[in-house]
């Protein structure tokens, strides 16, 4: 577990220096990056809830759903222990994978059939209406979804 936490911290540190999801409002001239991020001013307590889907991944003897959820929650705690971040994460509960998509700003951790060579992926969902307002400083994330493998 110590190794997991140490690795999480190292990845969180690396992640802070790079951000994949950036839009530019012009193709020419000075390019101003407009990141996609949660609008923390609109989220109570600047705390984004994460939900875990109820679809059970394949587990081998010795593994359990409870320990899997525990590790996800521990990973969130690692983030919450980063005191320079405005964003906080809290566990919102277990959510049915068949529930309608909710666009309350939150994070969904799902389990799906991921092909070989794919350990995990995730990304934000945003409104894409064909352009970015020139005065926009960021694009608010409606929902962020993470897919973890349910197959082994």
């Amino acid at each position, binding site marked *: 577990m110590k190794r997991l936490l140490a690795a999480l911290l190292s990845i969180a540190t690396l992640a802070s220096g790079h951000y994949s999801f950036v839009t530019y409002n012009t193709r020419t001239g000075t390019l101003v990056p407009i990141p996609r991020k949660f609008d923390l001013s609109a989220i109570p307590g600047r705390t984004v809830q994460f939900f875990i889907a109820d679809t059970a991944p394949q587990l081998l003897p010795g593994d359990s759903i409870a320990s899997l959820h525990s590790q996800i929650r521990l990973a969130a705690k690692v983030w919450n222990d980063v005191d320079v971040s405005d964003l906080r994460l809290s566990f919102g509960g277990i959510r049915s994978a068949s529930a309608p998509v909710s666009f309350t700003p939150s994070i969904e951790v799902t389990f799906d059939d991921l092909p070989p*060579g794919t350990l995990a992926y995730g990304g934000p969902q945003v409104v894409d209406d064909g352009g970015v307002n020139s005065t926009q400083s960021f694009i608010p994330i409606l929902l962020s979804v993470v897919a973890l493998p349910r197959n082994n």
Partner: protein
Amino acid sequence: MVRFVQVSILCGMAAILAPATTLELLGIDGLIDKSTQVVRGKVSNCGGAYRGAMIYTHCSVTIVETLKGAPATQARFSVPGGKVSNIRQSIAGSPDFQPGVEYVLFLWTSPNGFTQIIGLSQGKFEVRSTATTQTAVRAAIGDVTMLDGMGQEVQDAGARMTLTSLRQRMANRSVGK
């Protein structure tokens, strides 16, 4: 399995935080061995749809050559990310396709019948032709964390090989089994 689950959670939470994608680097032989179907063809009719909370883009490939699997003229596959109505989801490392371009695709169908490209963009090669040679080329994948089989971070340098070499390699892998 425990190590795999831990790595997956680790990567997934990194995806929450960054967000990002984490892949395991597969060589050509890994792609060949782990695919259920390898085809050459042009991609069309792509459209987004929700699968649970995630948006996927579902595409068709018109097959001109089946390199592995049952011969077919058409196949459907999905890639994560895309657009549904006015909602867009972006997934780092997910492949996109240009109309009219020929690709070699390493596909994998899950036991539940969900067909995807192996390793996101790792399983998508663009076919470049000259008068004498056809070469399958995959550019290095950016914006992702790439790990080797031991969980160590590695750099992806892309890949390329002639179709003749690829066919030979596939035949050799098949004979070796």
